[in-house]
C-alpha cells in the first residue's frame, strides 16, 4: 500500500505520460497529436519538480541567523524552466507546421494527408 500511496506523485507522472503518449499515437488529428506531446512533456516536468521537493522545505534563501533551514533543491526547478521554454518552442513550431500543412493540403487529418500524397 505504501508503494501505491506513498509514491503518488510518480503514479501521476506515469499516468500523464501514458495519456500523452497514447494521444500522440492514436489520434490522427495533427493538433491533437501536439496536445498529446505537450501532456507527455509536462509529465516529465512534474517528475523533475516532485523529485526536488522536500516536505516542509522552503525556498533556498539564506537568512542571517537561520542557517539550518530545510529547503527544496532548486536545481530541478531551474532545469524545468529551461524545459518549459523548450516545450513552448516545440509546440509553437509544431502548430506553425500544422498551419502550413492546412494551407497546403486543406486538412489536418493524417489519413487524408496520406491519401493525397499517395495520389501524387
Amino acid at each position, binding site marked *: 500500500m505504501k508503494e501505491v500511496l506513498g509514491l503518488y506523485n510518480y503514479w501521476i507522472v506515469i499516468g500523464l505520460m501514458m495519456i500523452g503518449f497514447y494521444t500522440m499515437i492514436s489520434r490522427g488529428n495533427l493538433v491533437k497529436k501536439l496536445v498529446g506531446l505537450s501532456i507527455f512533456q509536462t509529465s*516529465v516536468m512534474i517528475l523533475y519538480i516532485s523529485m526536488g521537493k522536500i516536505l516542509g522545505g522552503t525556498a533556498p534563501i539564506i537568512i542571517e541567523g537561520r542557517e539550518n533551514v530545510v529547503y527544496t533543491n532548486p536545481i530541478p526547478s531551474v532545469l524545468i524552466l529551461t524545459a518549459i521554454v523548450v516545450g513552448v518552442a516545440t509546440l509553437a*513550431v509544431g502548430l506553425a507546421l500544422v498551419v502550413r500543412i492546412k494551407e497546403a493540403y486543406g486538412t489536418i487529418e493524417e489519413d487524408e494527408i496520406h491519401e493525397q500524397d499517395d495520389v501524387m
Partner: protein
Amino acid sequence: MSQHLPVLQVVVPLLAAPLAALVRRPRLSWLVAFLAALWAFGVAVALLHHVLSVGPISYHIGDWAPPWGIEYRVDQVNAFVLLIVSGIAAVVLPYARASVEWEIENERIPLFYTALILCMTGLLGISVTGDVFNVFVFLEISSLSAYALIAMGQDRRALTAAYQYLIMGSVGATFIVIGIGLMYVMTGTLNMADLAQRLPAMEANRTIPVAFAFLTVGISLKLALFPLHLWLPNAYAYAPSTVTSFIASTATKVAVYMLLRFVFTVFGAAFSFDVMNIDRILTPLALAAIVFMSLSAIYQPNVKRLLAYSSVAQIGYMVLGISLASVFGVAAGILHLFNHALIKGALFMAMGCVMYRVGSVRIEAMAGLGRTMPFTMAAFVIGGLSLIGVPLTVGFISKLYLVRAALEQGMWPVAVLVLVGSLLAVIYVWKVVEVAYFRQPIGDGSIREAPLSLLLPTWVLVLANIWFGVDAKLTAGVAIRAAQTLLGVGS
C-alpha cells in the same frame, strides 16, 4: 584567447544567428553564416590540434568550477566530431548560396540562414559540452531549427516530414530528459565526469538501469537506429538540398556521438556491456539496419530518399562498431562517422546540383545526365564508389576496420553481413549510374552542367573522399586514440 576556444566554438555562431536575421539582405546574411561556419571550423581545427598535442581541455563556463558550474570538455572524441560538423558546414555554405536562392523565397533567406547557423550551433554545443542537461538544451536548439529548415522544402511533403520529425524527435528528446532526471535524482550531479565517478556505486539501484534505458532509446530515436528511423527518409528526401547535405552528414553523427558519450564515458563500458548487455540489442539492430535498409534503398524511386535509406543502413555500421566495444570496433564506428559525413555530403550535394538544373531527383530524371552533367555525375559515381567501399576511398577504410574488429572477436557472420551490405550498396548506386549513363537524355536538351559555385564544394568533398581514403593515417589515428580514450585503455 586560446584557453577560451571551447566556448568561442559555440558562442560566436550563436551570436551570428540573430545577426543573420537582422541584416535582412539575402547575400549579407549568407556572408554572416559563411563567416560563422569558417570561424567554427578554424576553432575546431585549433581545438583538435591542441587536444592531440597537449591533451584534453576543460573549460568552466563563467568560471564556476564543476560539478556546480557547466563544464565544456574537449577530448579526442568530441574534437573530432566538432571538426566534422564545422567542416561540413564550411563546405556546405559556399554551396548554399546558389542553391538556396533557387529553392527558397527571397524574403525567407535570412531566416533560413539563421536557422542553419542555429542548427550548427546546437550540434557543436552537444559535442563540446560536458554537462548532460546542457546536452539536452543544445539538442533542442539543433532539432527545432532542423524542423524549421526541413519544412522549407519546395515539396509540400516537406511539411509533413518536418511534422513527423518534430513528434518523434521531441519524444526522443523527452526520453533523454527523463534519463537525465533519473540520473540526477540518484547522484545529484549533471556533470559527465562527476556522473562517471558516482554512478558505479549506484549500479545496484534499479533507477540507474531505467535511466540507461530511457537515454539509449531516446538517443536511438535521434540517431535513427532501425527501427526508430521512420522520420528520417522523408525528412531527407523533401528538405532543401542544402539542408539535406548538412543534416545528413552531421545531425545523426552527433547523435551517434551522444551514444558514445553516454555509453562509454557516463555509464562506462563495464556497466553498459557487462551489466546491461547493450550489445545484445545494438548488434542485431545494427545488422538489421544494414541489411533491411539497404534492401529498402534498392526500391526507392527518388534518389534522395534512396540515399536516406542508405544513411539508415550506414548508421547501422557505426552502431555495429560501437556495439563491438573493442578499440578497433569503436574506432571503426568513429571513423565511419567522419567518412560517412564525407560520403553522404558529397552524394547529397551532387543531387542538389541535379535538383538545381533538372528540378527533380527521381531516378527517371537522371536519364542521360552522364553526358549533360558530366562533372556532377562523376562526383556521384565517386561518392557512390566510396559508399560501396572501393579501395582508396574513405568507405573502404571504414569497412576495413569494422570487418577486422568483427573478425578479431571471431564474429565472422557479422563480418560477412557487413560485406553483404556493401554489395547491396552496389545495387542501389548502380541503379542510378545505369540510368545516368545508358539512357538517352530526356527533354529539349536544355540541361547544362551545374554552376561552379555548386560544383566546387561538391568536388571538395569528393576529393576529400579520395584523400582520406589514400592517406587515412590522420583520421584512423585520431579514431583509434578516441576509442582508447572512451574505453579507458592506455595508448
